[in-house]
């Protein structure tokens, strides 16, 4: 049975009215149950309320589907295989007709078979040839579940023109993909093509299903995403007691009392257990429900099967479907249960053993009546190849997935919205809204999934009741944030930040904040710090009007805990230290030794006191109270204690500083988060050539450069001899005289051109100088009468003219310098020219 991973395809089972009625009944049956669940005691008022509610319910009878018309398809552009049938196909159609006739004769009370609907070009095509097995180039489509999910997302559903009959048309999958919509037959043909291409033994099924299923109505299903994952129950394996395991201490309590107690408790427990069991059963049912009705087989939604086919053959179901599809035997090799159309040599699911051959032949004998004619014809007949064009899905379409990149699915008490990546500017790809009630008015919680966010936000979970927001990040956030749960973005409120500790230098795992405290958890630090808890006091009001940031809250108490440092002896390795800053008290607790149960403790009281003579007391024995597991001499010394205290004082300062830094960091992260939230930039993979603007620009620039390079090369290859060669009769070998002439002509021409160029520059130079002189003359004549503007104009003209003259002068000089060189270079080149070299080398 498992082999049939097909998407079961179905038609409406009963009459429309019946279906509607059943739905109504179902809903009616369901509603009171729901109400009772919510309110345990039913009062008169409630009953009235219930009545009102029930009357409000409108059974939504889907409007009569308008006659199913597909968008006009340009038939002329379709390939030839669409427009006509080959000989083999004609033959197959005849066979099918014959089969159909026999079938209707033998089973007159059954619906006519769905064998050869018309295609886009109104040409009858056999259903099996409409399946074109194709392996898609996307790994996601290699598995049946993701593949089916893709098909259901990619196409939009169009109801059948007549829910009780198979459609008169069955379009090719290529056309369906182009239109991105289709009826259930189109869905299944496409999916079947892809699954068979991916190596599955898949079949298209023509049958009956419930209305919800046929209309892809999931409003009565529980959303699979809202279900909690099954908790794996781990049984702790208890090691068998060893030979010398100590006996447990003798139990001295009264057995009688125990018995009484157990008796009393048992009654309560039984009750509880019963309740639990019920609960469990209910849960189990929920869990076993199929995640998507598109692929179930033991589901209640599948009511019956008429026939099924794949790309090779066609089978008719001869079993009774009184108990939906639950009792069907999917052994297609069994000719009693499944009547085949073509005699197939490889019956894939024949599970009968060789020994049953005789039995089989008997059965065959029984079927002879209908098999007789067919078998003669079908001998060595196999299915002609598919007439359908190649199934192709462009990468863009694959990524966009749903038509227009958006899809909304309504579940029971939940709504799931899906978008293609990059459709939303904030990277939102799906949103699941859970509701408290069935009408979907009271929102319980919202889960939003994001993709390609620059701030690595992956999931945002908003609990609308508590107002708690939980943001989850993928690795790669600039502050190594992993989870951030908060109710408000204001600092000094309740919040928890979790981090990817390996990405952080300080090994911080988690930071919890409340209004008055901050707790940090660390791991893998070289100083073995594991925990720091800071208690803050109320903020002191400052007289100066400083901003809030520069007025940190006073620290009241810092508690730090450390992991065991294996290099130090336990008596010197501090496990916990508490700085009570207001009391000026420092408490130390050391780690416990391996074989001890008590740990050393030390408490420093730091009060600056003055003795009777007014001298400052540096250190007295009562300033350090210590308990040592194994007292040693040197720790009793005041000097040792003094030094330890001085060190702790420094460390206290450091810890306070770190607490302050942590506060700053929280502010920084919050600021960063706000900025990121406002910007919500999306990342684009460098492999995404379509979206990546930068790489596009780069590619285009490269192309341009290449083009220019090409042009330059073309130019460089310009043939300087071509104009002269053209004068000569083509195809003839050059004589020496011709070659010499050619060379001379070429050279003289070049010389002429150089002279011309020099003359041209000279002429321009002279012209420019003359003009300047004229202007100067004019200026000198009219100098007195000129307005300041004119004077300015004149001056600017002068400077420009001078500039031009200078440039021309330079060019002329340069030309004079380079011209002989260029001339020589050309001469050299001509000598080496492959067309002339043979003839000219005699002279060299």
């Amino acid at each position: 049975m498992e082999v049939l991973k097909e998407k079961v395809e179905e038609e409406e089972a009963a009459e429309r009215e019946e279906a509607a009625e059943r739905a109504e009944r179902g809903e009616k049956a369901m509603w009171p149950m729901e109400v009772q669940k919510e309110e345990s005691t039913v009062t008169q008022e409630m009953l009235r309320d219930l009545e009102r509610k029930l009357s409000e319910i409108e059974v939504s009878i889907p409007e009569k589907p308008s006659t199913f018309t597909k968008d006009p398809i340009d038939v002329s552009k379709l390939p030839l295989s669409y427009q006509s049938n080959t000989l083999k196909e004609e033959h197959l159609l005849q066979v099918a007709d014959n089969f159909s006739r026999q079938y209707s004769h033998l089973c007159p009370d059954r619906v006519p078979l769905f064998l050869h609907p018309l295609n886009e070009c109104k040409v009858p095509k056999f259903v099996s040839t409409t399946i074109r097995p194709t392996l898609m180039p996307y790994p996601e489509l290699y598995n049946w579940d993701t593949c089916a999910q893709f098909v259901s997302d990619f196409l939009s559903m169009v109801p059948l023109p007549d829910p009780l009959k198979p459609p008169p048309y069955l379009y090719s999958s290529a056309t369906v993909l182009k239109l991105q919509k289709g009826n259930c037959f189109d869905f299944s043909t496409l999916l079947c093509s892809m699954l068979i291409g991916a190596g599955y033994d898949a079949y298209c099924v023509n049958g009956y299903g419930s209305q919800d299923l046929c209309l892809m109505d999931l409003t009565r299903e529980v959303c699979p995403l809202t279900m909690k994952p099954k908790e794996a129950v781990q049984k702790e394996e208890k090691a068998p007691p060893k030979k010398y395991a100590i006996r447990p201490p003798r139990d001295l309590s009264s057995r009688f009392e125990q018995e009484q107690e157990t008796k009393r408790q048992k009654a309560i427990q039984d009750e509880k257990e019963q309740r639990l069991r019920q609960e469990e059963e209910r849960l189990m049912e929920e869990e076993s429900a199929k995640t998507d009705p598109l692929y179930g087989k033991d589901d209640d939604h599948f009511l019956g099967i008429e026939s099924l086919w794949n790309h090779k053959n066609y089978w008719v179901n001869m079993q009774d479907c009184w108990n939906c599809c639950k009792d069907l035997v999917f052994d297609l090799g069994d000719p009693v249960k499944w009547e085949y159309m073509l005699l197939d040599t490889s019956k894939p699911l024949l599970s009968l053993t060789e020994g049953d051959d005789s039995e089989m032949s008997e059965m065959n004998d029984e079927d002879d009546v209908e098999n007789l004619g067919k078998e003669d014809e079908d001998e060595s007949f196999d299915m002609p190849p598919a007439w359908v064009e190649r199934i192709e899905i462009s990468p863009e379409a694959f990524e966009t997935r749903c038509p227009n990149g958006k899809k909304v699915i309504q579940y029971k008490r939940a709504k799931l919205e899906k978008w293609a990546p990059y459709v939303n500017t904030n990277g939102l790809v799906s949103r699941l809204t859970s509701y408290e009630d069935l009408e979907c008015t009271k929102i319980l919680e919202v889960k939003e999934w994001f993709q390609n966010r620059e701030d690595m936000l992956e999931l945002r979970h908003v609990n609308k009741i508590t107002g708690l927001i939980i943001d989850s990040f993928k690795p790669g956030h600039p502050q190594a944030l992993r989870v951030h749960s908060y109710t408000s973005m204001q600092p000094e409120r309740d919040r928890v930040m979790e981090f990817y500790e390996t990405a952080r230098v300080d090994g911080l795992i988690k930071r919890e904040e409340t209004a008055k405290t901050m707790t940090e958890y660390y791991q893998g630090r070289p100083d073995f710090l594991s925990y720091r808890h800071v208690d803050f006091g109320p903020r002191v009001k400052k007289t100066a009007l400083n901003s809030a940031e520069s007025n940190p809250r006073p620290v009241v108490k810092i508690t730090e805990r450390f992991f065991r440092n294996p290099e130090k002896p336990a008596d010197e390795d501090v496990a916990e230290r508490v700085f009570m800053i207001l009391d000026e008290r420092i408490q130390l607790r050391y780690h416990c030794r391996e074989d001890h149960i008590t740990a050393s403790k030390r408490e420093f009281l730091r009060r600056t006191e003055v003795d009777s003579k007014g001298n400052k007391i540096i250190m007295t024995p009562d300033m350090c109270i210590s308990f040592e597991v194994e007292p040693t001499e040197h720790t009793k010394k005041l000097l040792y204690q003094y030094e330890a205290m001085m060190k702790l004082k420094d460390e206290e300062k450091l810890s306070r500083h770190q607490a302050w830094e942590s506060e700053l960091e929280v502010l920084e992260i919050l600021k960063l988060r706000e900025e990121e939230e406002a910007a919500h930039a999306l990342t684009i993979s460098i492999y995404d050539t379509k979206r990546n603007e930068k790489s596009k620009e780069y590619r285009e620039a490269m192309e341009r450069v290449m083009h220019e390079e090409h042009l330059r090369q073309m130019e460089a290859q310009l043939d300087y001899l071509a104009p002269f060669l053209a004068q000569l009769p083509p195809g003839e070998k050059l004589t020496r005289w011709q070659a010499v002439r050619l060379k001379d002509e070429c050279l003289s021409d070049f010389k002429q051109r150089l002279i011309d160029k020099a003359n041209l520059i000279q002429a321009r130079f002279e012209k420019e100088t003359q003009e300047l002189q004229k202007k100067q003359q004019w200026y000198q004549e009219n100098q007195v009468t000129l307005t300041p503007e004119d004077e300015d104009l004149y001056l600017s003209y002068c400077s420009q003219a001078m500039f031009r003259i200078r440039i021309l002068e330079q060019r002329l000089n340069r030309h004079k310098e380079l011209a002989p060189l260029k001339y020589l270079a050309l001469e050299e080149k001509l000598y080496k020219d492959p067309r002339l070299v043979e003839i000219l080398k005699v002279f060299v």
Partner: protein
Amino acid sequence: MSRLGDVEPRVIDDHMLKQAVGEQGPQEEAGQLAKQEGVLFKDVLSLQLDFQNILRIDNLWPFENLRKLQLDNNVIEKIEGLERLTRLVWLDLSFNNIEAIEGLDSLESLEDLSLFNNRISKVDSLDALVRLQVLSLGNNRIANLTNVIYLRRFKGLRTLSLAGNPVAEQDDYKMFVCAYLPDLVYLDFRRIDDHTKELAEVKHQYSLDELKHRENLLQAQQEDEQARREELEEHKAAFVENLNGPFLFESMYAEDVEGSKLACLPGVGELLETYRDKFVIVCLNLFECGLKQQEKRKAELDTFSQCVQEAIQENQEQGRQRIAKFEETHLLSLSAIRDASELTTLETRLVACRERVAELFNALMTLEMQLAEQLEETISLFERNIADLVGLFVENVQSLMAQCRDLENHHHEKLLEAAINTLEKTVKGELDEDLPDDVRALFVDKDTLVNAVGASHDVHLLKIDSREDELVTKVHAWCTHLLDRIHRDEITRNRKRVKEISQYADHAQTELDALECAELLD
């Protein structure tokens, strides 16, 4: 002190040490404290005694924990008096008049040794300094490059200075040192670059290879020796050492004069051969059995100690949890008592606190008593089992030894027979002439012969008996020793825990007392 000309050599005395410690110890506030309390020599970690004209190192033994000792710029002639400073890491003896390296055998943690500017001519007696990293031997009188080879044994040596020695003036000096000490990083305070290292290696490749080969051989030999020793130890632990071969058999004949004489008799050679084979097989059986039994005993002991460990761990965990719980409430109530103002509430709180302490004490003691009882039970069970195992082993050994004795008896009979036959032949004069004279002396009469054979037999039996006795006594001794140890360990553990618990409770009580006193004073 600093007179011109010859200064008077001094000796390290208490005054000098106290002065040095005082000057080099903590300063300012901490210094006041140190003065007030006095500093114990054994707490000093670093000591500087330079430019003191010290002639002899002495009186340094109280500085048990000294890490760094500077004795440079003195007139010391001999390294001595440092035996007790085992934790020394840094020793500076530069600018003295030392002629030989000595007296450093106990300084195992020494890492940095400076003997700069002395009169040393030979590098040796440094074997104990396995952690040596820096060795300064500049300005000495080392003339022979072979001294460098001695330094190969210090795997951690990274810095060496030999400048100012006659040896450093040799052309090959640098290359030689680099080649023979490949792990060296600094020579004469300069980094050795890789290029020099390569060159040096190529230059001295052949002699170096030879040296390495010799070293490897030596090492392999040592390892072999070690392995053999370990194996023997293992066999000794199983009490069957030297039983995996013909050792016992050979030892039987080692002291047996008559036996070796009788071996020359015709036919006895073969007899001896078969006897020997059979005997060795029995010995091997005994050996195998011994090893097996040893393994069994070991497994038994392992499970026992594991179980005991687990039980103790669990108990400790319970104790710790109790204490943690107690401390949580105790700390709170202590601070409450500190803050309390009224005397009556204070009283009640103090009483409550005391009760809690007593309760904790009782709970912990109960736990400990429980554990002690449980362990006692387990130990007695183990005692029985191990005694059984030992008994079984002894029985096995005895039966196998009996086989040995049987073989010996059998052999004795056969030998006697052969001897008498030979005697008869001798009497009849049919004997071949190839018997040595001392053997021929046995065949004077029957009594002598029988006595000789009997003596040989007795010696053999004695050997077997003594081996058996040795084995059995050893096993029993091991057994009693083991059990004694287990009992002793358990008792010490118990005492320690009880002491710990009462100490803790006492501390809590005294703390409360101190609080009460303080409150009353207020």
